[in-house]
């Protein structure tokens, strides 16, 4: 089957039924000619000439190929990425009134109880977070933490905490989960201690809030009764 090339107008034998140009160079020359007829090209300054030279020859084409096209460097604005986890921690700390309530507790007559409990809870939370990041945690260590938490909850200081103390439900939730885990895994020596994302964020936030008021203390230096 024969066709007429749409660029050089010569007749050629088609290899494919949808062929339009006789050769690659005709296809490219036709492309350049089409581009040249477009009224606006990015970065083009000045007036658009009324007549355009669309008859591009092979020589011109090779000249164009050799020319380096310099595209003006544009200042790309970098938009910083956020972190989903950090945003969740932010939201938890910023929207919550717990820090304010804790501050109020420390200004009441029961502040000694708040301080006693807060110091121990901070220590226990630090330990729990550390375990959650380790590859394995020994069950005996987790049990020791669980027992310390039980003792804190049974202590007279915990019983006498101001009504406003905002972390009771968090502590009870952590204690319940830890105790359940220790009971389930008591026959093994070590496990991977992992937390749900929501629990971990809550513990990070509580630890951060406690750190504003209570010093960091070593587990071995504290009594929990």
């Amino acid at each position, binding site marked *: 089957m024969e066709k007429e090339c749409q660029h050089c107008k010569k007749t050629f034998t088609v290899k494919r039924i949808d062929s339009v140009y006789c050769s690659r160079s005709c296809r490219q020359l036709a492309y350049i000619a089409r581009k040249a007829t477009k009224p606006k090209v990015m970065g083009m300054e000045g007036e658009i000439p009324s007549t355009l030279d669309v008859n591009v020859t092979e020589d011109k084409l090779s000249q164009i190929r050799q020319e380096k096209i310099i595209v003006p460097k544009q200042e790309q604005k970098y938009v910083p990425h956020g972190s989903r986890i950090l945003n969740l921690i932010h939201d938890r700390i910023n929207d919550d009134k717990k820090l304010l309530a804790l501050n109020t507790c420390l200004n009441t007559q029961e502040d000694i109880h708040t301080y006693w409990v807060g110091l121990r809870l901070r220590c226990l939370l630090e330990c729990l977070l550390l375990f959650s990041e380790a590859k394995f945690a020994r069950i005996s260590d987790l049990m020791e933490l669980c027992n310390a938490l039980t003792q804190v909850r049974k202590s007279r200081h915990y019983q006498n905490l101001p009504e406003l103390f905002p972390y009771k439900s968090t502590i009870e939730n952590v204690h319940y989960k830890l105790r359940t885990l220790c009971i389930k895994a008591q026959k093994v020596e070590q496990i991977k201690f992992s937390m749900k994302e929501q629990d971990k964020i809550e513990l990070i936030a509580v630890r*951060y809030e406690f750190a504003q008021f209570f010093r960091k203390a070593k587990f071995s230096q504290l009594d929990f009764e």
Partner: protein
Amino acid sequence: MKPRNTKEECIKIPTDILLDVLTIIVKEHIRHEIADVLESRGIVKVSLYLNENLLKHQKVLHNIQSIIDEYNEYRYSETEELNWKD
């Protein structure tokens, strides 16, 4: 061999934010490799190969470091503790 104009930056990424940070590294086409995994601390060390001439690479590094610093501030506040008991 390290290409010219490339500097290596080693960053320690806590596993909690690992996915967020790796997303940035991949999206911004930063050449990287996992240098080490500190299993006992839940930290992954990643080496980034940054083009010193590219302002964008510096901005990406700053972006990543600020995320890690902010997370560390919330997570540790003070110096990181390794021994839970003593």
